[in-house]
């Protein structure tokens, strides 16, 4: 395949960025989107030019490192996939592809397609845990957990922290991300004990980090590569009301 790429290039947080166009030949439909960028970068580096910087690591859709805005969609146009899993067979010969970093006040651009998502970590530090010290836990089966609840907790817990929900949201809200963690613990008996302090601390930190408010549009759910449900946000709101 032959592609026309329009990629956001930005030297660092202090300089202004702009789109730069590249033509790329010989793209195999079996390549992943990141491998396609690898091919472009190989060409750039061999010519002594700086490659396009982007975060990536596991390349199997689970670490949450990668993430870019592709033709107006976080992680590209196919639902349920991270950028590293997006195969080039979903594109056509001759396509123009526009590639940008996540855009959100709380995620400042570091370089090219890399943004600073440490705000997510700070929200988790504020309360995303159950306070158990190593060695203190009771025998695992002494705490029974309803299978249905446990499975629902799992469905919330699979969030990979990539930030696509924030990038998709017109308000750059982090509600889906926060609600996934709050839900996981709210659904489990182990997590109920600290439920009130947790939800208050996490919401307060979320607001401090400069994320926008939720207006229940649902773009986050539509774009989440792990298909985390909007019902988590409803649960988060309920937990929050109950916490006062």
């Amino acid at each position, binding site marked *: 395949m032959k592609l026309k790429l329009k990629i956001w290039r930005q030297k660092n947080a202090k300089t202004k960025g702009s789109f730069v166009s590249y033509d790329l030949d010989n793209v195999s439909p079996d390549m992943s989107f990141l491998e396609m960028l690898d091919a472009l970068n190989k060409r750039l580096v061999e010519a002594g030019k700086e490659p396009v910087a982007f975060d990536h690591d596991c390349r199997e859709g689970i670490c949450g490192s990668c993430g870019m805005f592709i033709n107006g969609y976080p992680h590209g146009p196919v639902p349920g996939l991270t950028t590293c899993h997006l195969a080039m067979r979903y594109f056509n010969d001759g396509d123009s592809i526009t590639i940008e970093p996540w855009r959100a006040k709380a995620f400042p651009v570091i370089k090219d397609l890399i943004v600073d998502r440490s705000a997510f970590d700070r929200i988790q530090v504020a309360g995303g845990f159950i306070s158990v010290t190593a060695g203190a836990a009771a025998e695992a089966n002494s705490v029974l957990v309803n*299978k249905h609840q446990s499975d629902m907790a799992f469905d919330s817990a699979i969030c990979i922290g990539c930030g696509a929900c924030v990038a998709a949201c017109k308000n750059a809200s982090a509600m889906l991300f926060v609600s996934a963690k709050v839900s996981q613990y709210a659904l489990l008996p182990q997590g109920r004990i600290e439920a009130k302090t947790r939800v208050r601390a996490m919401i307060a930190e979320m607001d401090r980090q400069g994320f926008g408010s939720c207006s229940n549009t649902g773009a986050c759910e539509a774009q989440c590569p792990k298909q985390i449900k909007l019902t988590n946000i409803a649960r988060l709101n309920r937990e929050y009301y109950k916490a006062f």
Partner: protein
Amino acid sequence: MITLNAKIPEGPLEEKWTKYKSTTKLVNPANKKKLDIIIIGTGLSGAGSAAALGELGYNVKVFCYQDSPRRAHSVAAQGGINAAKNYKHDGDSVYRLFYDMIKGGDFRAREANVYRIAEVSNQVIDHYSALGVPFAREYGGTLDTRSFGGVQVSRTFYAKGQTGQQCLLGAYSSLNRQIKAGTVTMYPRRDMLDIVVIDGRARGIIVRNLLTGEIERHSAHAVVLASGGYGTIYYLSTLAVNSNASAAWKAFKKGAAFANPSFVQIHPTSIPQLNEFQSKLTLMSESLRNDGRIWVPKNKGDKRPANDIPEEERDYYLERRYPTFGNLVPRDVASRAAKERCDAGYGVGDTGLAVNLDFRDAIKKQGKKAIENKYGNLFEMYQHITGLDPYEEPMRIYPAGHYTMGGLWVDYELMTTLPGLFSIGESNFSDHGANRLGASSLMQAAGDGYFILPNTISNYLSGEIRTPKVPTTGAEFDEAEKKAKERIEKLLSIRGKNTSTTFHRRLGKIMWDYCGMTRNEEGLKKALKLVDELKKEFWSDLMVPGEGADLNQELEKAGRVADFMELAKLMITDALNRKESCGAHFREEYQTPDGEAMRNDSEYSYVAAWEYNGDDEPILNKEPLKFEFVELKERSYK
């Protein structure tokens, strides 16, 4: 020569750890606050130990190369985590888990260490469960388990195909709790460039801030490497593409012995390579072998679609060769059997480098829904990557580099031969011998981090309570920083024509061809020569654009590949030295007539701990393996 003192406590196997814990030296709470510990890596072992040490009151600094500790590669483990709970009432016990690991590792691991990890496995499950890790459950609310390759009991706890992610996020949550408490400081986006040794003890590290390119100095009373394995030496592997050996390699060059570097696990079930730009091989969990049947056509070069090949023309070669364990033989055995069939011309797919993993019978028997419940996310992942539907036709799989049993040599206290430097999780060599059984890596990493290191490190730190905060201004820090900067300058100044990835790919091919699933003397000697040539070419024809004082991903890669070039030689040297076949190390010269591994206990029942010797050949130190509690046996899965 270094002395290898494993410091194994006296007494019966089942009492060693209890006795050790009761008699080891402690540090009182007031002194803990004054002691600094550096940890490299935030996977299950790194994040777990950081949390546990922080909870104890030590002052902990943690480093990782990712933008967040939640992305460490433990996140990608799929199938599960073992524990000897015996919840299925199928005869499991701490002893049986220990024995399975010793046998699975082909009698090349230390008895006392293996027994201890089996012992703490139950505590790990209790802890993760309390942390809210959503493991699979039965309808009555108890925890569910499943069986995994190489064993006959059901002891693997799991969270669908995302057990590693769920355990890692559990570890990350406990790490976060300590960050909030102020006992742990997190330093993401840092690459460790060197270990600083003062008066023969590990006292600090040099790191590069990957955002700014700044070289930083950090000091401590002890340094812990939790930096993972080196399977990415093959370039294509199941690991995260940025996983690297650099921290362990720098430790080796500062005096920590490297044990059994050639023991590398090639995982049998990964999606085969599809394109020449491929950057990684995606694993399909071993748990799939519980229900999937592996086969190739009975006729050479049969190119019909799998579903058109009738039953009597299919060769279920694992079931044929190993009737007792069938499709559940250990990974090394399954990988070699796949390679054997493909090399003989029976492979499937365009390249002939793949075998079928077929769910037809399981779907017929259990229904599509049941299979979807167990493996839904894996099937989906397979379909996205290959464009093929595994509910309708068999998956195609092939072995891929996966896990390194080899690593830094550690004693019973998990300390390397460099005093004050500890190594935990995959970065050490200790528990898996020559082959790791499935679902044991999460167990070992979590066990090391939460429950073993916090007990053993106090014995060392109790001798450090009079050492004041280590200054970062001494000559040793100056020297280490200077060397790190010089190497960066050198990498940037070559200005050749090829990318570090190109060199990495070529190095990976050499290692895969000659030091992979099977090895022989001629090939290994050839590989030594090829690696030497490639290394020269690397240092004269590498291109790293940009500058050092900036975010520069090409520079990061170049440094890692430079270290892999050196490690490759040590792996080959180790493989050449070990003139036997054991576990994942299969020397073609040493096999039975029907192609099984032939161990040589009288000459090679030892851990090969290699010592750095400057530009000269590394020095081989041997730790003899004594088997006091199990009988050495031929490892048979027939």
